[in-house]
């Protein structure tokens, strides 16, 4: 598959803004998505650990983490829409080919994800009092976690197959005989997949540090539970962090020849250093975790480290495809469309910030007022009014610009 063929597979409509914008948004949104996935996997694993334990603290944690996992599944799915969108914009020849070559798995992805989600809900419905009563139908949670890992594996393979254009023809027609079944998963890297999955442990640890700080702020009286959380979070961050970095090193050491440049890439090295800082942060901060926003800062630094990992991952793809195959994602034909570009950025920056800011402020503060019905301050309520107003304005603009287009 030479460069000419790859370019022939590109969409002739071009892209409505400079390709770099989509590339950067792809990195940012992938980092957010993978963070949600890792919280989901980490929380699910903690639910299982708690479901098999008789200790009260573990059972209480399992209850909390079950709610976290349920929400994280939906957040991961919703946020995942964005990187899925942007990969199709810039890397359509690669993404679509990879998908068609494994078509059955692509459809299976949806069905397996639904099954995993329903299994998690099944466990939730079977255990309304998980904190105090023995866990029932633990197999549901095990099944859920297994299916979530499986869909992660499918997504890994689809992304990885993109990087092997020279093999596509062979996968499509092995020995010249067409195999249109789409039943194969053709290329994978266990170490690469393992690295992203193993990161769930330190991410879950950072999440627990934040949960603990949140409980402190809400006046949690069970000091032993807080101490349990602190111990567990540190262990997850340190051991999980070391394990992740070890698997990451293994990935770099076993890179195929054409990707060997990535082992010494400053992007990947910077990402690993940032990960190291993030996992060591709770130890470095010590007692400061008890005060101010430090407890939340660990997850924040972790998120920055994940953005660096996402950037490194993108650099691997971009550099490989442009260097080895001559496909430069940044020379995509641009059919600049200012209206839709500005609509997105204004919606994202203004409406999104105000509305999400309002919702998260209410969610946060109500959680900190556990004993009484929470009434937001006037300042917060004002944001709520603006949110409704901005949504109404957005809808009005939609119709106005539509009618203008119709009569123009």
């Amino acid at each position, binding site marked *: 598959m030479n460069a000419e063929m790859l370019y022939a597979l590109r969409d002739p409509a071009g892209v409505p803004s400079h390709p770099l914008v989509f590339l950067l948004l792809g990195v940012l949104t992938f980092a957010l998505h993978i963070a949600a996935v890792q919280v989901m996997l980490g929380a699910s694993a903690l639910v299982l650990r708690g479901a098999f334990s008789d200790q009260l603290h573990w059972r209480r944690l399992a209850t909390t983490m079950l709610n976290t996992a349920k929400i994280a599944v939906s957040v991961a799915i919703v946020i995942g829409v964005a990187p899925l969108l942007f990969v199709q914009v810039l890397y359509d020849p690669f993404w679509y080919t990879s998908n068609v070559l494994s078509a059955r798995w*692509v459809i299976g992805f949806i069905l397996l994800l639904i099954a995993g989600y329903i299994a998690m809900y099944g466990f939730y419905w079977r255990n309304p009092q998980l904190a105090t009563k023995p866990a029932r139908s633990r197999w549901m949670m095990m099944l859920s976690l297994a299916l979530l890992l499986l869909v992660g594996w499918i997504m890994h393979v689809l992304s990885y197959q993109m990087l092997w254009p020279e093999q596509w023809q062979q996968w499509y027609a092995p020995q010249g005989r067409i195999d249109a079944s789409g039943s194969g998963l053709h290329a994978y890297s266990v170490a690469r997949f393992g690295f992203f999955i193993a990161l769930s442990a330190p991410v879950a640890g950072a999440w627990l540090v934040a949960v603990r700080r949140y409980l402190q702020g809400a006046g949690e009286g069970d000091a032993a539970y807080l101490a349990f959380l602190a111990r567990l979070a540190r262990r997850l961050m340190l051991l999980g962090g070391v394990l992740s970095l070890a698997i990451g090193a293994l990935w770099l050491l076993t890179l195929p020849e054409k990707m060997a440049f990535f082992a010494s890439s400053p992007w990947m090295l910077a990402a690993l250093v940032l990960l190291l800082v993030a996992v060591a942060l709770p130890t470095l901060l010590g007692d400061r975790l008890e005060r101010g926003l430090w407890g939340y800062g660990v997850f924040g630094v972790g998120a920055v480290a994940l953005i660096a990992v996402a950037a490194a991952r993108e650099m691997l793809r971009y550099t490989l495809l442009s260097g080895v195959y001559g496909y430069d994602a940044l020379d995509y034909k641009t059919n600049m469309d200012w209206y*839709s570009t500005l609509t997105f950025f204004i919606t994202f920056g203004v409406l999104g910030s105000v509305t999400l800011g309002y919702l998260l402020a209410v969610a946060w503060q109500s959680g900190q007022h556990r004993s009484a019905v929470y009434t937001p301050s006037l300042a917060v309520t004002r944001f709520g009014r603006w949110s409704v107003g901005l949504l109404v304005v957005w809808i009005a603009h939609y119709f106005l610009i539509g009618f203008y287009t119709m009569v123009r």
Partner: protein
Amino acid sequence: MVGIIATVHVLFSHTSVGAAIFFAGLAVYADRNDKPEYLEFIRRYGMFLLVFSYVLGSITGPGIWFSTTVASPRGISALIHSFVWKWATEWVFFVIEVVGVYMLVYLAGKIDRKTHLRIAVIFGLTSYTTMLVIIGILSFMMWPGQERWFAEGGYLNGFYGVNTFAQLGMRTAFMFTMTAVVGGIVAARFDDPVFKKAVTTRLSWLGIVSTSAGAAMLQWYLGTLPETAQVVMANRLPDRFAPTLLAVLAAIGAYFAITMWKPRLLTPAVASVATVVLLVFGLWPEEVARESMRKPFVAGQYVYSNQIIARDVPGMGITSEIPRIEAHGLLKTQVFTPPGLREITPDNRLQAGQFLALSTCSNCHSLSSTGMRPLARYFGGNTDVAEISQYLQAALSTGATIYMPRIPLQDDEAQALATYIASLAPPKAAARPAPPAPKLAVAAQGITQP
């Protein structure tokens, strides 16, 4: 598969939006009449009706992407490359929705009622904006909003057309029908008979009015279809289509009339079954019709269902691939043609035919004896390669067949494809002398059916 996933997606997403509107109304009632106990309903049933259905809707939404990616990669690519920013904008609303949906359920009774109501309003408005966005993209998939889009390009010209607003009106009405149906599931559980009757009556009226409005909007929508779609509908949709649609509308009306007349008949089981039945039977015909009407195109009236760019779009710098295929043949212009099949020989003719069938027919026709529109069925067991080849070149190469894309086959390609099609004939038919080919002749006026 695309149709099934799309139907399931609309089932869950509409359930979620319908529930959100109903719960917002219930929250208003609870606030105005000082009835905090009704917030308990939001908490109790919100987890299933709102959250569960919302998440399944949000899985099957990208699921439509996934299924269309494998069924029609260039079709979905065309939509994505024209509307990436609109989809990204919708994503912002998705993120607001997912936060809002959990707050609506988890914070019911834990925050003051006005704030809860405001969150319900935000969720409802946000859900509606996602519909506003996707409607324009779906409309473009059928026809670019303005004819000038072909000459000028531009997002607005592609997005907005009379069809966009007709479809929006239809789906908005249907959304309120969903609110009425889903609301019934919760209302069925109210213990207070007076309140239950009051809510049921309101829901029934909402259902009757919205269904009637939806039926009117459907007429409007059908009136906005271009002539080609009218011809396709008249020729390709089964005779039972219109009566089925009318029966579904009548059934929805009857359901609401009955629940208004005898609210006690409204049980959770009845309401739940009604929700699923009405949605599936109401949605499936629409999905089928939408898939058929735009043929032979799959997106924007320039991408054929077999993934070939079939029309110049100067406004976007897009050029038709047909002239190049006409000049060089499909096998030499398709990127994925196996190297051994680029030149047809007696030894590889069958295989080349299989590749041609896979690349030009299989998007719409199953190559086995089962599945969607099996290819072999259209040739009635004919095994005469020359006849089939003649038909392919007469009817398809010229683009003279309604509903079918123009497939400019070279002589040897037509022969290869015919050889493969002949090989699909069931053994019994293959053993018989080849029957005349009554279906293969091109009608005098140049239009025939495959």
